[in-house]
């Protein structure tokens, strides 16, 4: 029997959880239809996570794209359909756009499989994003550099730990739901790989405790800076990224398996650790860096 998974009107991090809740009872090889026809909004997280979902299906899922032409045009510009066509059986037409208008996109959806891809996204960001980061977010050069480093390190997480290809997207926008519409830059990195718990287990870095699970694995990696590699210097990337995000009053969330952990600033009311979520493989990481307030306060 084919299950229909309804994509909510907002395909953001919360909307994607609704998708996963519906998916929870379906085995990987079940035939599913992902119905996004009534979706009116998609964030970088929603789009990259949706592609990741496509990667996890043993049997190609059917995908019904948004009816609203503006929405599907935006998804096309972001590069979603270009990759979705390989992962889903798309029913209905999708807009073909020439990606000449970059708008406020810092980096369209980009597949990541190897170290060379990390170089590629870093060079692309350096070329494309400087203007937006300077004029809209008003980040000084050192903060811009920190942003690029955060991008590099989070993307490397796929290459070093996932064991599977993943996706990155970065965008600048005015955050109207929070921060009184201030400009922010967002990085999203998603993969369907082994996830944090299995990565630590493979390196024999699992702490001795009865509490072991996805939540504690995320705490061990993010808060304690433990990497699956035993060298003293490993884990520096995530630790450094965490430091940069803290200094910029930014936000970092990582979802892996059945848990999500967050470094939550005062301007957001998310819970720092959520467990017992519907299972989703790999790691889905989201970074938000607010632009400067007048007077230079992040």
């Amino acid at each position: 029997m084919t299950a229909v998974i309804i994509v909510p009107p907002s395909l953001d991090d919360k909307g994607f959880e609704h998708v996963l809740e519906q998916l929870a009872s379906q085995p990987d090889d079940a035939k599913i239809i992902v119905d996004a026809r009534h979706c009116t909004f998609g964030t970088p997280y929603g789009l990259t996570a949706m592609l990741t979902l496509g990667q996890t299906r043993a049997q190609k899922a059917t995908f019904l794209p948004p009816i609203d032409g503006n929405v599907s045009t935006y998804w096309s510009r972001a590069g979603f359909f270009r990759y979705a066509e390989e992962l889903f059986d798309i029913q209905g037409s999708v807009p073909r756009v020439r990606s000449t208008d970059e708008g406020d996109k810092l980096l369209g959806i980009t597949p990541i499989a190897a170290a060379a891809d990390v170089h590629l996204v870093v060079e692309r960001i350096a070329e494309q994003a400087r203007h937006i980061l300077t004029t809209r977010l008003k980040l000084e050069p050192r903060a811009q550099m920190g942003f690029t480093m955060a991008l590099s390190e989070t993307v490397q997480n796929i290459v070093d730990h996932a064991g599977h290809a993943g996706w990155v997207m970065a965008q600048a926008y005015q955050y109207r739901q929070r921060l009184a519409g201030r400009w922010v830059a967002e990085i999203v990195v998603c993969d369907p790989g082994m996830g944090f718990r299995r990565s630590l287990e493979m390196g024999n870095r699992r702490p001795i405790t009865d509490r072991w699970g996805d939540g504690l694995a995320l705490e061990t990696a993010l808060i304690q800076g433990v990497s699956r590699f035993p060298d003293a210097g490993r884990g520096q990337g995530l630790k450094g990224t965490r430091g940069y995000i803290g200094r910029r009053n930014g936000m970092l969330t990582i979802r892996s398996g059945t848990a999500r952990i967050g470094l939550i600033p005062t301007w957001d009311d998310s819970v720092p650790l959520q467990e017992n979520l519907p299972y989703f493989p790999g790691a889905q990481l989201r970074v938000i860096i607010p632009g400067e307030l007048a007077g230079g306060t992040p």
Partner: protein
Amino acid sequence: MTRIDVGSVLRNSANLPYRNLVTRSTGAAVRQCIELELAALPADETATLDFSQIGMMDFSCADEIVAKLLLDPPHGAPARTCGLVIFHGITDHHLEAIEDVLHHHGLAMVVHFADGGARLVGAVNDDERLMWELVYATGGTTVQALATRAGRAHTDTEQILELLHSRHLVRHAEQGYHPLGSLH
């Protein structure tokens, strides 16, 4: 003094067509090339690593290149053949990552600027920094002269200088202690 252009090492020796030092694998490839060049130098030679052709460096590369070149080799590995390394062409674009990994490992390094100035970067306490600055301000002198200028006891001064020397941040010569890169 030998100069190693890290940008050239990245593109030519490591054969990676990039301007930025990102990813741990890139860092490891560049460090291995630098280690080969350092190994060919006389033991008392100071090498300058020039980063002026490098766009940016991430935390993983800073750890793989800067920290691992400064760290003592692990037990059982061959000893470093060139103990003295100074850094040139370091900008704010590199410092964010470098300072972070230096503090993580408790390391420090000497950065030389194009105008001849120098700065100590990383994990050092106030006493070490003050003494290092005196060594650089004097261009190198005896322990007694440095003790007098610092207003400290001779034994205290010698202890701090010896610590700086063991961390490869100053040179030890017959007449006392000297900045890295100086001729005496």
